[in-house]
């Protein structure tokens, strides 16, 4: 059968246990569904299809399945990953501090040009917030990634997060293709620690009118 899509991106969710990675990807994991068969056995990965600029993109999205508890996230998990969503919980300071460790883990085990994004997830009520939005933004600037605050429970910004990451991977691939023509001088690699270039696209607020 002919290929029915233009791009296939493998995306990973990374972060401490309990930050809501699972509810970013798996929204029915909360208590009200605990008698459903699916929430009992859990979901390994999802395939989602989106459209960007007329291109059909298949996203294969993986959760760590709790492996992070045992620090066993290594090269095998990262293999083939083109995008990584780093998740912390805004009501959990420690999960925010650990983002730096996760980035180190990525640098050690993932492909050097993997696209990254930081998400501050609100698993709980706003009053329990420990990490300000500003600190999240600053961290993202420091690592040259995009940043979003999400609420998996309210389904706020979740789709935007996946769209944004997919869009970044796609433009990088197109840039790489263009570079064959020699017009693009940038290396296209993720510039760790180098902030400047990505600032402009921060919260560009493009609305996803494609969904």
């Amino acid at each position, binding site marked *: *059968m002919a290929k029915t899509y233009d791009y296939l991106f493998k995306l990973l969710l990374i972060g401490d246990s309990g930050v809501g990675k699972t509810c970013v990807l798996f929204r029915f994991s909360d208590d009200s569904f605990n*008698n459903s068969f699916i929430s009992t056995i859990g979901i390994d*990965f*999802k*395939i989602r*299809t989106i459209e960007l600029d007329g291109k*059909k993109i298949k996203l*294969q999205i993986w959760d760590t399945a709790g492996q992070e508890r045992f620090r066993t996230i290594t090269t095998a998990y990262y293999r083939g990953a083109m995008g990584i969503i780093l998740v912390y919980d805004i009501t959990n300071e420690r999960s925010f501090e650990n983002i730096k460790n996760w980035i180190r883990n990525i640098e050690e085990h993932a492909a050097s040009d993997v696209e990254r994004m930081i998400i501050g997830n609100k698993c709980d009520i706003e009053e329990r917030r420990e990490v300000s939005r500003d600190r999240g933004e600053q961290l993202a600037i420091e690592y040259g990634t995009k940043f979003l605050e999400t609420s998996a429970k309210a389904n706020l910004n979740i789709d935007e997060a996946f769209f944004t990451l997919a869009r970044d991977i796609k433009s990088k691939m197109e840039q790489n293709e263009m570079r064959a023509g020699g017009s693009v001088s940038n290396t296209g690699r993720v510039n760790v620690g180098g902030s400047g270039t990505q600032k402009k696209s921060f919260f560009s607020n493009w609305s996803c009118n494609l969904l």
Partner: protein
Amino acid sequence: MSSSTNSQPSALMQPSKSPTESRSSVVKVETNESTYICKICQTVVILKNMTTEYLDEERDLPLPRQKKGIDHTQTEPIRGFFGVKDMFAFENVGFTRSSEGKRYLVCGECEQGPVGFVDPVTEMNYVSPERLDVLPDVAAAAVEAGK
């Protein structure tokens, strides 16, 4: 009907041993002529003409809702599944972790299901039209146009 073996617990547990022989009577080369959507959230699970075979056999699928306080998985027999090997043939689908050696398919958006299963031997992905709705023609035309 399902094979005549006496192991009742789950027809799913029987590996489909010889693809050429035992499957030939129940597997037809046939694609899905409708686009199938989730019964709950209406998200497209698979577009029409994406599957490659039809499994005309009864298999047990777990009930989406399980009664509390029961120590086994409640299932119901379902007959007829569209099969496709390539997982990327799906628009929106989730793959569960393994439960008793079985992996299941769910809606990629709202996760209701199972809407199908993965054959552990052949790794074919089978979806049940019974656990999904058909996208009405008008809507299907709109989806096509939006491609």
